[in-house]
């Protein structure tokens, strides 16, 4: 959502209210258009948080089915983007909590067919590709970071993700997680403190 230019967002927003109203009146086509507008962001967030394509796909499915079922309850009191993100963050939090109890260590993404994929290897970096030692070093670093992130509580993980990686404002994060800006700020502080302790000495 942050990557879009102001013009693009303006174009998307103008007919959005119309689309929501049509979807509320039962139009599948209008709902499908809304899905197209938000699906990339939903998948990006779910994929980065869960580290698994399979989980991200499940969250996508459940989030949009919920949105379809409850779109009649949307009353334009917040932006549609906050509303849909609230659904997604709740599902992601549930998923993180389940994962936390299983204590699985995922240092890599798991794709649809169950194969493990190192996402760092897919990020283009000419220097490291030309230097295998550096590539290995980067891979190990990515794994350390993922482990450190998994040590956070689900809520700390979510606030850090939304702030650091998705660039949302703390006020919006508070709104999405049904809490105050102050609480979101404190959670971010705790998350950075823990991450620094976990990653001390890593450069």
């Amino acid at each position, binding site marked *: 959502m942050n990557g879009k230019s*102001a013009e693009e*967002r*303006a*174009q998307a*927003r*103008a007919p*959005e*209210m119309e689309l929501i109203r049509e979807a509320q009146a*039962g139009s*599948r086509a209008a*709902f*499908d258009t809304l*899905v197209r507008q938000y*699906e*990339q962001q939903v*998948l*990006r967030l779910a*994929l*980065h948080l869960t580290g698994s*394509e399979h989980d*991200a*796909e499940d969250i*996508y*499915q459940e989030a*949009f*089915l919920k949105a*379809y079922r409850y779109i*009649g*309850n949307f*009353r*334009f*009191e917040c*932006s549609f983007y906050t509303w849909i993100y609230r659904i997604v963050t709740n599902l992601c939090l549930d998923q993180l909590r389940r994962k936390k109890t299983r204590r699985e260590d995922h240092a890599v*993404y798991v794709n*649809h067919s169950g194969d493990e994929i190192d996402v*760092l290897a*897919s*990020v283009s970096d000419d220097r490291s590709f030309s230097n295998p030692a550096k590539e290995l070093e*980067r891979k190990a*670093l*990515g794994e350390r*970071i*993922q482990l450190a*992130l998994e040590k956070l509580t689900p809520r700390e993980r979510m606030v850090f993700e939304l*702030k*650091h*990686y*998705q660039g949302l*404002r*703390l*006020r919006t994060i508070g709104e999405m997680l049904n809490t105050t800006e102050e609480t979101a*700020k*404190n959670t*971010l*502080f705790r998350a*950075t403190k823990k991450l*620094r302790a976990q*990653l001390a000495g*890593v*450069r």
Partner: protein
Amino acid sequence: MNCEVAHERIVTAAYGELADEQTHELERHLATCPECGRDREELLALKVLMAAHPVAEPDANLVARSRLRLEEALDALPPMRWFERLSQKLTNNFASLQAAPVAAGLLLVLGVGAGSLGGYRVAEHRAGQAKAAIAAQIERGAVQPAAVETAGSTAPAEIANISSIVQQPNSHLVEVRYNQLVPQQIEGSLDDPAIRQLLMLASQNSASAGVRDNSVGLLAAECRAGHGCKAQGIRDALMVALRYDKNSGVREKALKGLEPYVAEDQRVRDAMLEALLNDSDPKIRTAAINILQPVEGDTSVRQVLHSVANSDRNPYIRTVSREVLSREPEIQ
């Protein structure tokens, strides 16, 4: 400032969420406290380090697969039955009634009053008609069962639906029962909660841009005059109009109505900043720039103005925001 507070503020500052005044205090503390200086360096190093775990764009196959699965699931859903739709509508209406209990109560009382009065008048009129008809029939010596209207006596201009059709056995007579839509009107002061509720409804639900324009114009004038423009009522309606109305004239009126609350209400400020960033009409964006007043403790105004001044496609908007930034150094 003690070091504990400084540590918290270092984090908020690193993520661009610290007000300018507090940033200044923090800088002063950091200049004299090497321990907190190290803390900031460590945090900035963490931010750089975390870039080694980047956010990947979802693979096109994953998007296509997820979309397909969702479409299948949606196709398999049974269509919503009428009572489910009704219950959803009722839940919504109940929620909005909760938001405006006084207005809702008044509307209810008005409705019941108007209904009883109308019913009484209609009954009185019909009784008179029936009496006259019976008297005429008695005169002619042929008394027929009354209370059945004959064809041609009503104009079917506003028939909402037909509820039953029964043909009398072995005759050409047909009894049709139908319901009519009756337009209503209400007159009252702008301070009347019922009138306000109707204006708020009109500002969002009317298909006619003229009606929306009139209602938003009146509500905005009330807000500007400071007449009961509460956060949960009219102000919300104006924010919805500013964000979503298709007509730029309506949006402009909503913007003017919200002007007095830009300093005190964070949500108004957000709506104003969104208009500045996203509105399709440069006139409204320019008006939003001029309305944004010094807002202590909120850096978003300055950030948005900076971003618009540096990178907006419209050169006029760039110039105006630059002018505001240079003219109002105290804007936070």
